[in-house]
């Protein structure tokens, strides 16, 4: 029945060899986790999750700096997380003794939030710093962790308060 089939057998052998080579190559090249959840490498999820954290989170800060938390509780800045002003501090929380956060320039930090801008919500406290502070640093009068100026604790600051020229005191 099958006469002169030698060429077919050869062809079949080549085909089988090609299929085996493809399967072997694919198994070697495609990572094991590829396709575990979908058309991607599932191990990539773990690799992305393994990145170190740069912001420690305010709960970690509050564990040590309880004095600051007590101050903040008395004012409206209690809602402001530490790293909003102080920047990423995971390195400091990992090694508090040697890595110290830099001192902040209040003229820059405060105005980021409180510089007047018509796009800001109307109820948010805003000032035109050039009018309001007249070159003085914010922490001359305000304590950043408890910014509202209260009469009893700021006599010293009140004495050095600039004579405000504009009618609104720079406030909006």
């Amino acid at each position, binding site marked *: 029945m099958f006469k002169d089939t030698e060429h077919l057998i050869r062809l079949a052998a080549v085909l089988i060899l090609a299929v085996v080579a493809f399967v072997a190559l694919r198994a070697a090249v495609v990572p094991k986790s*590829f396709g575990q*959840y*979908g*058309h*991607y*490498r599932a191990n*990539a*999820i*773990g*690799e*992305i*999750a*393994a*990145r*170190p*954290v*740069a*912001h420690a*989170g*305010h709960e970690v800060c509050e564990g040590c700096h309880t004095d600051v938390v007590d101050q903040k509780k008395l004012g409206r800045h209690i*809602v*402001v*997380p530490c*790293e*909003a002003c102080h*920047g*990423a501090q995971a390195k400091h929380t990992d090694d508090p003794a040697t890595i110290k956060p830099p001192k902040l320039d209040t003229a820059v930090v405060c*105005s*980021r*939030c409180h*510089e*007047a*801008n*018509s*796009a*800001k*919500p109307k109820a*948010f406290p805003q000032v035109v710093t050039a009018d309001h502070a007249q070159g003085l640093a914010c922490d001359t009068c305000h304590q950043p962790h408890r910014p509202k100026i209260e009469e009893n604790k700021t006599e010293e600051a009140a004495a050095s308060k600039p004579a405000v020229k504009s009618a609104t005191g720079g406030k909006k």
Partner: protein
Amino acid sequence: MEITRRRLLVLLPAAAVAWKYIQAGTPEASPNYKLSEHWWGMLIDIPKCIGCGSCVRACSAENDVPDGYFRTWIERYHVPDWAIECPEVESPNGGKDGFPPNQSTGKNFFVPKLCNHCADSPCTQVCPVGATFVSPDGVVLVDKNYCLGCRYCVQACPYGCRFINPKTNTAEKCTLCYHRITKGLTTACAEVCPTGARQLADLKNPSDPIHEFLKTHSVQVLKPHMATGAKVFYNGMDGSVR
């Protein structure tokens, strides 16, 4: 058991192998995290945003975002009058350094933007090599070891949330701080937001306050007509926002 010289020789290599396993296990800092128990999104409360740029700076610091590129950014909208189809939008340096004074007329507000972590994301569908994907917990991620840098996804994203990192030449985007949320932390941007305008939301967690918020507020997603299944919800969003 008395430790003889022979037993010590057997025990030492075993201990060395065990120690190697322990060491290899330590970088996996989220052993209790289960992919199937989360479905991440974000809530953005536009009336609370003061455009301070803290989120943009925090994102850059947390994720080593190259200068001039942004995984999140803030836009300032100016709508002069009735023409909400033609708002003036600006985002100087992504809002990283705040915004210069602007017109006091018309309607002005800030809109923080980031990847919408779409459930049916156009960007993952166009990737020819399976380098970008929606993870089982609903975060759109990039496998930078697989990315070719072909830019298909950059073009496909309707929200402009992707870019090619000039150092690695691979696609990059917001990971929703995947390395933080899998450790039980919030995202860097939500962590530093001084007014609580950004909140991480776990839509599979029934005790997440997002559910109560969604029930009681009129929220929108960006470009709903694109049917991307966006999971960044905006509260108080004006019709002019693109």
